[in-house]
């Protein structure tokens, strides 16, 4: 029997979002959505309460009875009440607490961290073989404390290319065996190093740890193989979902196991890349963390941080970047910026009440994205065809042009790409729905999920401020032409409403490349209308802001005006 209607949900650490999907004219469509605070913290400590509240709000919007006696009505009744199925994702679980250990050189630990950051982990410490041997870091005491408390979910050991020496790995295993045997607990140890070392390492660690062997993270220099570790870590994260307070009743309703949000969002981004043959970068700016997801070529698939989001962990962002780095994105002076940012960290669910407060939150988001990209991978800066923004901040904006400028400033794409917004933070929910009813997920993703913001052209090159970087001519399919030039250091938004198409001719000057690999080379491309239009971003890469505060403010204000708000 085919399932015709669904409620999908994403239980975030701060907000719970729900969506009603039903067949309309023979196709699955988004009918309504709702949200409510996640009821994870005291005094509630039961996430099903927030979920019911969000569904209750959606009932009102959709004018359809979905709840009865404190639970979701399934299957759909003849009177149109209820739905046939329910699926959910969540990021409200505790993250995996990991310690990573690697060889002397930095590559193995770097790969281990990249694998760890592909899902919800908290890396409590990292050690090289030398640091363990010489007991030379203060973190070792914390390591022993975690072992004794039983608070560690896994130790991830990486190192050694295939065919390389095995002795250093065995020696490291002996050090770890001594530490683990002194901890009084039996931790899980994931060995993802040189496969030839598996047998001697297993002999050393037998009886002391629960050992799991996975593919070498770095079989050859320059060749990463993260999938094995990522898969294992994801399954461990999946196990953490069962400990979310109140999740049992949500699980009972669900057609499929509740997915970690990042996994489902990663699926949605990969689906977009595969279906439309695009290189896609997804960015999720959530209150509990930042996620970067890419698909479409040989890219890092996913980088998450649970340590810093647009709420929890902002104290760390503030400490690492400093107030000045955040202030530089504001077109005005603001007193007490540090206080306001830390207050947001204390109460991540709160909303700005003034324009100044809103722009401060956006400034923090820009800096958060820049920080995330630096930590992720240099490959994240490679050109993409489509950037998709999702998460709480982006879905609460009064003007899509603000979303476009936040994504441009934070990610600084190069060449030509499209910008889209997941207005209702639906992508992860569709990733979960795909496990139960792929057709429904594909149809809603194609029709109702993404708001096309427009096309960005970001020429690469350097000139004097005010010198012409690019000339353009846009011929609208419905008639009419706009011609103009864009000077270096500025933004130009060319209107192109939804549903309209145009032919855009670009003629960069000799110092600029529009993504074709050669300066001065012109291009003609077909563009589609969107909420913002066509954006020519001739501000250069990386973006540079003046040192002096007043000049900084002038420039940021100029960019906002040029973007149209």
């Amino acid at each position, binding site marked *: 029997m085919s399932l015709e209607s669904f409620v999908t949900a994403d239980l975030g650490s701060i907000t719970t979002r729900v969506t009603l999907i039903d067949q309309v004219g023979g196709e699955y469509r988004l009918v309504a959505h709702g949200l409510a605070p996640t009821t994870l913290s005291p005094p509630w400590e039961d996430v099903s309460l927030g979920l019911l*509240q969000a569904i209750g709000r959606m009932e009102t919007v959709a004018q359809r009875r979905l709840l009865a006696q404190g639970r979701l009505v399934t299957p759909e009744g003849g009177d149109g009440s209820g739905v046939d199925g329910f699926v959910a994702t969540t990021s409200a679980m505790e993250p995996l607490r990991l310690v990573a250990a690697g060889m002397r050189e930095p590559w193995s630990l770097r790969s281990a961290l990249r694998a760890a950051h592909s899902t919800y982990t908290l890396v409590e410490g990292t050690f090289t073989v030398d640091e363990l041997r010489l007991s030379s870091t203060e973190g070792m005491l914390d390591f022993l404390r975690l072992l004794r*408390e039983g608070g560690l979910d896994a130790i991830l050991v990486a190192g050694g290319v295939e065919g390389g020496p095995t002795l250093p790995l065995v020696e490291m295993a002996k050090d770890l065996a001594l*530490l683990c045997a002194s901890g009084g607990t039996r931790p899980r140890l994931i060995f993802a190093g040189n496969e030839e070392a598996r047998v001697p390492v297993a002999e050393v660690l037998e009886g002391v740890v629960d050992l799991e062997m996975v593919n070498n993270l770095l079989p050859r220099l320059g060749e990463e193989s993260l999938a094995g570790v990522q898969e294992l870590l994801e399954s461990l994260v999946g196990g953490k979902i069962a400990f979310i307070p109140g999740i049992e009743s949500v699980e009972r309703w669900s057609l499929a196991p509740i997915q970690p949000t990042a996994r489902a969002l990663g699926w949605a981004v990969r689906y977009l890349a595969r279906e439309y043959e695009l290189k896609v970068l997804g960015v999720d700016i959530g209150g509990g963390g930042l996620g970067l997801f890419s698909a479409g070529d040989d890219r890092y698939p996913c980088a998450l941080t649970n340590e810093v989001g647009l709420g929890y962990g902002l104290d760390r962002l*503030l400490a690492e970047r400093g107030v000045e780095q955040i202030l530089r994105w504001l077109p005005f002076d603001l007193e*007490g910026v540090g206080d306001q940012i830390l*207050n947001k960290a204390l109460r991540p669910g*709160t*909303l700005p*009440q003034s324009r100044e407060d809103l722009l401060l939150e956006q400034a923090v988001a820009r800096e958060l994205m820049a920080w995330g990209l630096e930590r992720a991978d240099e490959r994240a800066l490679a050109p993409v065809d489509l950037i998709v923004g999702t998460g709480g901040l982006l879905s609460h904006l009064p003007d899509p042009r603000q979303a476009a400028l936040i994504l441009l400033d934070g990610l600084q794409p190069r060449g030509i790409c499209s910008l889209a917004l997941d207005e209702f933070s639906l992508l992860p929910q569709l990733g979960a729905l795909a496990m139960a009813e792929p057709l429904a997920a594909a149809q809603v993703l194609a029709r109702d999920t993404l708001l096309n913001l427009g096309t960005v052209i970001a020429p690469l090159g350097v000139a004097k401020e005010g010198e012409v970087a690019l000339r353009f001519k846009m011929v609208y399919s419905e008639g009419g032409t706009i011609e103009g030039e864009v000077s270096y250091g500025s933004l130009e938004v060319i209107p192109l409403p939804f549903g309209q198409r145009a032919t855009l001719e670009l003629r960069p000057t000799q110092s600029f490349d529009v993504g074709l690999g050669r300066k001065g080379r012109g291009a003609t491309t077909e563009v589609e209308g969107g909420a913002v239009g066509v954006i020519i971003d001739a501000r250069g890469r990386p973006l540079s802001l003046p040192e002096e505060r007043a000049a900084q403010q002038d420039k940021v204000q100029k960019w906002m005006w040029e973007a149209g708000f």
Partner: protein
Amino acid sequence: MYYPSAFKVVPYGRVRLERLLPFPGEVLVEPGQRVEPMDVVGRAHIPSQIRILHVAQRLSVAEVALQEYLLKGPGERVEEGEVIAVAGRWPFRRLYRAPAEGKIVNEAQGRLLLEVSPSTYELRAYLKGVVTQVVSSRGLAIETSGAIMEGAWAMGGDAFGVLKMLGEAPEGRLVPEAIDMGYHGAIVVVESWATKEGLGKAKEVGVRGVILGSLPSSLVGFVSTLSFPVMIMEGFGQVPISRPLFSLFQQHAGREACMASGIPYGVRLLRPQVIIPFLRGEEAPRGEGPALKEGALVRLVREPYLGKVGCVAILPPQRRRVEWGVEVEGVEVDLEEGERVFVPLANLELLEGSSLEG
């Protein structure tokens, strides 16, 4: 029903305090046992660092045979430079000396694990009550009756002492001239915020803890160097403690209290608490949880109204547009100052514990 953030203020009821060892150790009490605030209820030996000693390798002996060469083994204390293993015969004896003073805790794989200079940490109860739960080697929970107030943020661990309101102070701030030796050993309640110099003077005076309305965020680093806990009730900035809370503190001035800094617990928010134990007949029955309704007492938790308290006047059925252009769900609140303001639901906390009459 709407499930808003709730801020726990219980003027009188059952209170529970969790006491945790900073490093796994030994819990010295049993469930059901009565404890006094200064009773030692747990003990842990916390090393200053740990060292892996590669003894077998250094002595060139087989790892499996190391025990034959050890003069000191697990459980034994060693002095810096003390010989702990010997191999070979005279005159070719090879010695292994302890690199630091400490305690050997384990031997395996030809190695020894040395805990360097362990110091003994004693966990005190900080609350007069009954032990209701013991988690082996980690900590315990104590329950009693009294008042409980949640704070917004704290740093510096837990404290126990007599609550003392800061007396004459300009605009209720903790400045050096406002505090003297009369506050030695007390938990000082400051109506507004503190200066760096004021906190420095509190340290000199020897206070056990400081409770503030707020704290400028620029002082967080300084607070981390203090030897006593600092708790803020409202948020960062320069905001006074909201009136109902301040009244409650005033009411209990002179009583013993416990400051618990809370435990960072992953994605869930466990807020710091002030617990004031006392006995007063019947406890107020606990309801099903706070509900947002007209007349409910709420605290506003975001600028520009941070720290203000008021009563819910109207629950508008429709969303409203806020200054920056987005429609949000919210309520109209009558502030104590007499003004009526619209506040997004996300920006208020119910004062849990319906009556604040004390």
